[in-house]
């Protein structure tokens, strides 16, 4: 029997606000335990939540970009459960009236266009962090992350492959970064994904029993976990055993999923409207303002790059996949670099340098000004391409002044025609055999002569100028 894998995603994204969702403590990542906290964060008796206006704005922006219906009258509900990372013993979330519903995104995958429906997007608060202290044999609760704003984006079970899942998450990450609503750093946990997976006989319209996988902290983990879990479920079914609906934890080291201890009565969250938070009403004017403020997102940007600059599709996709990279590219072009040149440099040197250093495009040390100047020097013939690459490598980390560096290291190209002419004349006089070889049709000899001229000029000559001078004498 062939089996079909059916996947839905629940993605939690930390919003890039300065303060928490319900108090004015900083959302900064890290920090000594419990130092980004106040009575609201630690669930002190008598403390009350007050909504951060930026959270609403970011949630709506994300919803608009994911083509969702915006709930004009919405509110917060309490989700009640006991766990030490949740100091109030309830999470303020949205069940009855989530801020956004019924969205959709289109993905281009190697297998073609794929349509994914968004079930809902809602706002909620993050929980704290628990670390077990083996020395004390006690668990330490740090509430710095308590109240960091999250949006949870829930898709319909529309995915069939891990590739589609990754394409969706890449699209989501790019979109949210473009909007500036999240930095989506998986390694810092600002984008977290739970995968709901079931399998069914191919062609069946009925959904199988699903499991939920947690602790997936990279695209690689997601891909491997999907493969593992689909195989596990298929094996169970083929052995005639049932799949049990449960939450499973992905273990990166063991490359397998494991059932988590089922929380007692975990399902009955007794949601009810939070009496501490008045309802929200989103006026048409408010929505209109946010619509106007929406930036150009990657698909629109890609179309523009192709249309205006005729860049190859692969380059366009790479450049627009990350907002920081697209911004870098556009600023370089705005400073006068020809788009094709700028693109080549970014696709080659810039991405190479970033990946060699394990840097994200947002952490780029080089400024567009420096790259644009470098490109200009090559274009005007004052630096040759190879030297320019060396200069690039030298200034990438410090963003040092290109002109000063070139001057200091005497790297400027010799463009003085007379100097080139003199060198050529000297080389031809010194190597009559090579001249004769070339004239008798041995093309290789030309390369040797070029090399000799370059050597005389200490490698600072412009190769086209040397070629031209040699040809003009030899081909007479």
């Amino acid at each position, binding site marked *: 029997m062939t089996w079909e894998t059916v996947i839905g995603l629940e993605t939690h994204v930390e919003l890039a606000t300065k303060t928490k969702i319900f108090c004015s403590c900083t959302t900064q990542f890290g920090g000594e335990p419990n130092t980004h906290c106040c*009575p609201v964060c630690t669930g002190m008796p*008598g403390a009350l939540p007050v909504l951060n206006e930026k959270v609403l704005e970011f949630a709506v922006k994300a919803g608009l970009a994911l083509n969702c219906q915006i709930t004009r009258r919405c509110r917060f509900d309490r989700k009640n459960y006991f766990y030490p990372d949740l100091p109030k013993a309830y999470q303020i979330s949205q069940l009855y009236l989530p801020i956004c519903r019924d969205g959709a995104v289109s993905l281009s995958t190697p297998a073609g266009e794929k349509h994914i429906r968004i079930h809902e997007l809602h706002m909620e608060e993050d929980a704290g962090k628990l670390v077990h202290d083996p020395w004390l044999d006690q668990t330490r609760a740090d509430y710095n992350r308590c109240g960091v704003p999250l949006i949870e984006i829930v898709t319909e079970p529309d995915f069939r492959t891990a590739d589609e899942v990754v394409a969706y998450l890449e699209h989501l990450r790019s979109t949210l970064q473009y909007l500036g609503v999240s930095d989506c750093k998986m390694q810092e946990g600002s984008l977290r994904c739970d995968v709901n997976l079931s399998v069914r006989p191919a062609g069946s319209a009925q959904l199988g029993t699903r499991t939920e996988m947690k602790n997936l902290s990279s695209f690689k983990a997601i891909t491997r976990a999907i493969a593992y879990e689909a195989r596990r479920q298929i094996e169970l079914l083929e052995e005639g055993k049932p799949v049990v609906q449960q939450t499973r934890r992905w273990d990166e080291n063991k490359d397998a999923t494991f059932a988590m201890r089922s929380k007692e009565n975990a399902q009955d969250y007794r949601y009810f409207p939070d009496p501490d938070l008045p309802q929200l009403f989103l006026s048409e004017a408010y929505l209109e303002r946010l619509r106007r403020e929406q930036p150009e997102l990657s698909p629109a940007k890609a179309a523009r790059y192709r249309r205006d600059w005729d860049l190859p599709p692969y380059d366009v996709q790479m450049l627009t996949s990350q907002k920081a990279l697209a911004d870098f590219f556009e600023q370089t072009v705005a400073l006068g670099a020809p788009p094709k040149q700028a693109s080549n440099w970014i696709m080659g040197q810039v991405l190479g340098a970033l990946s060699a250093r394990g840097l994200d495009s947002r952490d780029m040390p080089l400024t567009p000004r420096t790259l644009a100047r470098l490109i200009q020097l090559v274009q005007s013939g004052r630096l040759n391409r190879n030297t320019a690459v060396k200069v690039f490598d030298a200034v990438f980390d410090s963003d040092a002044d290109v002109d000063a560096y070139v001057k200091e290291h005497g790297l400027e190209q010799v463009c003085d025609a007379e100097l080139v002419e003199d060198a050529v004349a000297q080389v031809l006089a010194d190597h009559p055999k090579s001249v004769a070889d070339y004239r008798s049709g041995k093309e290789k000899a030309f390369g040797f002569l070029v090399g000799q001229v370059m050597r005389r000029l200490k490698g600072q000559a412009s190769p086209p100028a040397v070629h031209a001078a040699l040809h003009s004498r030899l081909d007479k």
Partner: protein
Amino acid sequence: MEWSAYTALELGTAIKEGALSPAQAVQAGLDAAGRHTHLNSFITLAGTRALERAQQLRPGGAGAESPLYGVPMGVKDNICTKGIKTTCASMILGDFAPPYDAAAVERLNQAGAVCLGKLNMDEFAMGSTTETSYYGPVRNPWDPGRVPGGSSGGAAAAVAAGEIWYAIGSDTGGSIRQPAAFCGVTGMKPTYGAVSRYGLIAYASSLDQVGPIARSAADCAAVLDVIAGRDRRDSTSLEYAGPLLPRLTGEVRGMRIGLPGQCFGDGLNKEVRAAVLAAAEILKSRGARVEEFSMPMLDYGVPAYYIIACAEASSNLARFDGVKYGWRAEGCQDLTELYTKTRTQGFGPEVKRRILLGTFVLSAGYYDAYYKKALQAKALIKSAFDLAFQTYDLLLTPVTPTTAPKLGETLSDPLQMYLSDVYTVPVNLAGLPGLSMPCGFDSRGLPIGAQLIGPLLGDLPVLNAAHAFQLETDYHRRMPKGGDAL
């Protein structure tokens, strides 16, 4: 006249005029409290701290423009006071000393209030008798064999006995008005949102409201002028149209006052009925127009109230788990045991009953039949009040069906206790201002209270009508057994 017989405003004037110093006022309060330890009105008496504070107050100092500058007062023990133990009269909070002041306390401090201590109450404000306190019951100053009402029983008893000149309490279903009635003092639950709830340890967030208990309506107005107003830390707090005190004219001519028939029917003690109707006559004599009308929706107040209040309480009290603050059960091996033991041993029976009830009405399968239904009943009760206020400026009702019962009398039958809140809970459901004022005594000499209810934000007309009544009567000036000597 003894200082303890003064109203808060009178004492404030005496302090302003130099007839006594704030420290002497504190000493007078402490002396009265010392004579009445059997009342058990305080959980924490902060005498030394209060004296130090009083000695720092200077004529013309910050806040001296307040008419209550230097007047000793008390704070119900579910309102946070920075560095002073705040227990909610529960074992589970242990010696919890909050790291912050409640908004109302902060404002009172700025106005030169001197806090004598933290007042006894029903555990987590759940009760109508102040018998559910972990720190023992409070006794009624008018008859120590009887309850002072609840849940702000310590506050009402302490004001009645002249230990403090006013108190701030909380009222979720009558917790200010009912003990005020039983103790012969004036208590007001303002419009929901008038006073910030920041720092009030929540029982039922959509119903809880902080308010004053004092001798007179004018005192209550003066306290509200200090504590009311929008607070950026409480999203449900409202802009307040104060000050109220200068606008208390006692003028009620032409005011239309409605008496809901449902509040004067079976189950109402005859003496209470007579006293409340007599109060209506007095307002009439000052020019108000009084008439009876029918408001059948009031009959659904108690069930709707207890469903909503318990549901919210089950969520609000979940944070008391022995991890972050308060008391923790010893010797627990795992997390569930820690939670369960701490909560089972740390909460008293009435709190547990309400948590279970609240958990039940929110649980899967019962939400619609109970919780949602109660929210719908609340909407209908609110509409019924809206309709009534199209015809009437104020409503007048009894506060309680009877005068104060004996200790232990109601505790055995929780439902009976819930039913005694019949006149007060609809006011909380609709978010309205309600005031309880002394309007007479029964044949045993126990105080009787009348309740004035106003429309949303109608705190001023409520206080003004009570002020008018108190200009005509002296029930609010009477002290238990000839002053403070019990």
